[in-house]
C-alpha cells in the first residue's frame, strides 16, 4: 500500500529547487526514512543542514511533522496518509 505526503520548503528552496513536493511512500515508512530520502533526492548540502554531526535532526533546519517540531524520538514515527512536513531554515529572530 502506498501513502502520500506533502513536503513544503521555507527559505530552503534554493537547495531543493522547489517550494513543495508530493512524495509517494510505502506504508510503514518512518519519518527518519523520509528525511533520508529527501537528502538522497536533494543532496548532501541538505543533509548537512538537516542533521547535526551526531545525526540528530535540526542543526540549521527546523522540521515540523503535522505541526510538531521534529526531535530525535520522532524519527521512528510512521508516516500516515496525507501527512504534512514543513521544513524551515532555523531563524535568527527579529
Amino acid at each position: 500500500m502506498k501513502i502520500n505526503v506533502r513536503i513544503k520548503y521555507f527559505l530552503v528552496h534554493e537547495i531543493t529547487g522547489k517550494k513543495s513536493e508530493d512524495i509517494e511512500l510505502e506504508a510503514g515508512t518512518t519519518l527518519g526514512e523520509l528525511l533520508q530520502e529527501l537528502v538522497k533526492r536533494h543532496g548532501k548540502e541538505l543533509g548537512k543542514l538537516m542533521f547535526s554531526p551526531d545525526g540528530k535532526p535540526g542543526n540549521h533546519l527546523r522540521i515540523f511533522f503535522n505541526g510538531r517540531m521534529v526531535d530525535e524520538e520522532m524519527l521512528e514515527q510512521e508516516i500516515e496518509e496525507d501527512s504534512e512536513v514543513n521544513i524551515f531554515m532555523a531563524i535568527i529572530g527579529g
Partner: protein
Amino acid sequence: MKILQIDLDQGEVKEEKLAAEFKTSGGRLLTLSFLLDLPGDLDPLSSEAPLIFATGPLAGSGVTCSHRLSAGGKSPLTGGIKESNSGGMVAYHLARLGYRALLIKGANQDGDMVIRVEPEKVHLERREKYRELGNYDLLEEIRKEYGADYSVISIGPAGENGLLSSGIAITDPLGLPNRFAARGGLGAVMGSKGVKAILISAKGKQRFEPQSKGEFQSAQKEFNRIVRENPRIEVLQKYGTASTVSMVNQLGALPTRNFSQGTFAGAEKIDGEHMYKLITQRGGGTPTESCMPGCIIQCSNVFPGPDGKRIVGPIEYETLGLLGSNLDIDCLDTIAHLNYLCNDLGLDTIEVGCSLGVATEAGLVSYGDGKAYGELIEEMGKNTVLGRVLGQGAFLAGQVLGVKRVPVAKRQGISAYDPRGVKGTGVTYATSPMGADHTAGLTVFAPVEHGKKDGQLELSRRMQLVRAAYDALGLCAFLLGATGPHPDKAVALINAAYGKEHGADYLEKLGAQVIAGELKFNEKAGFTPANDCLPEFFYKEKLPPYDLTFDLSREETGSLFEDLRKDS
C-alpha cells in the same frame, strides 16, 4: 577611552577617563553603571535622570557587528531599568572620537537643544526651527545647516511631547534616521532634557589599537569566518529578519488580532520571500543593506513602493508582526507606510502595534484598516488627547479604554512572539528587568518544542545571560546564530584587544553581572519577584490553533533570578 559628560543645567561639558573596570566592557553594563546609585524614586523625566549612550569595547575595531549603540536610562514606560540598543553609525563615530560613552544630565527648558560633538570641542546650540520636525525633515535640515559629516541621534515629535512609546533615532550608513533605540520610552527621556538632536562628528581620528595586533587579527579573522560560513546568516542576509514570519506562524505564535490568534492567514504575504520578491521586482530598494560599518551580515533592507521609490528601510520582523498580523494587515505597502510614520514621529513600532491592537479591541478602529491606523499614528504626532492615550503605550491605552487583553509585561508591549507559543521567550518577557523585550533573551531559534514548558526556564535564563553579555560588548545579537555556540571566539577578541586572559565563561559572568545590577536597580524602584509574570489572559485564554496557554507558574518565573538577586 573617555566618557563625555554634558550637564545641561550648568551648560558644562567635561571629559573623564574611562574607569579601568570598563576597559573590556561597555554598552548595557556601562549605561547601567551611571544609574545604579540613583534614588529608587527617581522621576525618569526629571532633569536629575541621566540619559547615556555607550559603545562596546570593540567599537572602531572593524570586527563585524561590533557597533551597537546602547541607550540607557530609567524607563518612563516600565518605571525600571532600560537599555535599548541600535545599529547605525554613532557608535563607530564615538569610538573614532575616543569616547566609550556620552552622558547627558540636566535639561534645557526650551526643548530645542542641539549638541554637536566635534573632535576638539562640544557645542551646545539652540535651534528653535527644529522643534516638532519629524525625524526625516529634521535630518534634511541638519544636512543643510551642518553638512553630511555627522551621524545623528534624534527624536521626533513623540519624544518632544513625552510619549512613552517614543524612541530615539540613530542615522544609518545612508545618513537616514532609520535605526532605533526604540524601546521603553527613551525618546521621552531625551525630550525631557530638551535635546532634539546630537550630532557626532565623523572626523575623529582615534584608531583602535589592540594590545596584541597579531592575535587580534587572527581572532577577528576566525570570528568573521564563523559568521560568514554559517548558512543561516546567508538567509538572513537575503531575506532579512522577515524570514522569521513563516516559522513563527507555523509555531502558532505569530501575534494576530491583538494576540487572540497564533496564526495569520496572510502570513505568506508579509514574509521574507514575498518582501524579497517585491523589492527586487520593483527596483529602487534593496533586500540587503548594512546598518553599521563593517557588518558582514547585512540583514537590513530598503523597501520601495510600487513606483520604485523608497517607502522605508528597513522593515523588520517585529514591525511585520505588530503592525501587520497583529492588526490583520497583510499588505507590505501598508505596513511600510505605518513603519515610516512611526520612524518619522519617533515611535516604537512594537509599542504602537500593541497599542493599536488594544484600540481595535476597544472599537476605535477595525482590524485591517490601514488608513485608519495611519491616522491614529498621526494623532500621536499631533499630541491630541486620543494620540496621547494611544501613544502612552498599550498598558495605559488599555487602562483608559477598558480593554482586558493587553499584551504587556512590566507595562511594556510584547514583541512578535506570543508567549504561549514560544514559551522560553515568554519567560524572558516575564523575568527580564527590561520588561517584555525579545532582545533580552530570544529563544525561538533553539531546537526545542516551543509550545511546551519543559526546559524553557533554563533556556530563557541562558539566552538572557548571553544576550546581556553581547549587549555589554556592543555586539549585535544576530551574530548569535553563528557565534553563539563558540563563546570562546568572542572572548578571544577581547583578550587579544586588551591583553586579558578571560576564560570562555567570561560571557556568562558578564551577563550575570549585567542582570544582577539591573535587578538591583529595579528592586530600588519597587519591583519584586511578584512582578515577574505576564498578564492574566496569557495564563487563561487558549491560543488558537494549538490551544496553548502560558503554563509556567508565577512562582517559577519569579524565582528564575533568585541567585542573582541575592548577589546584587
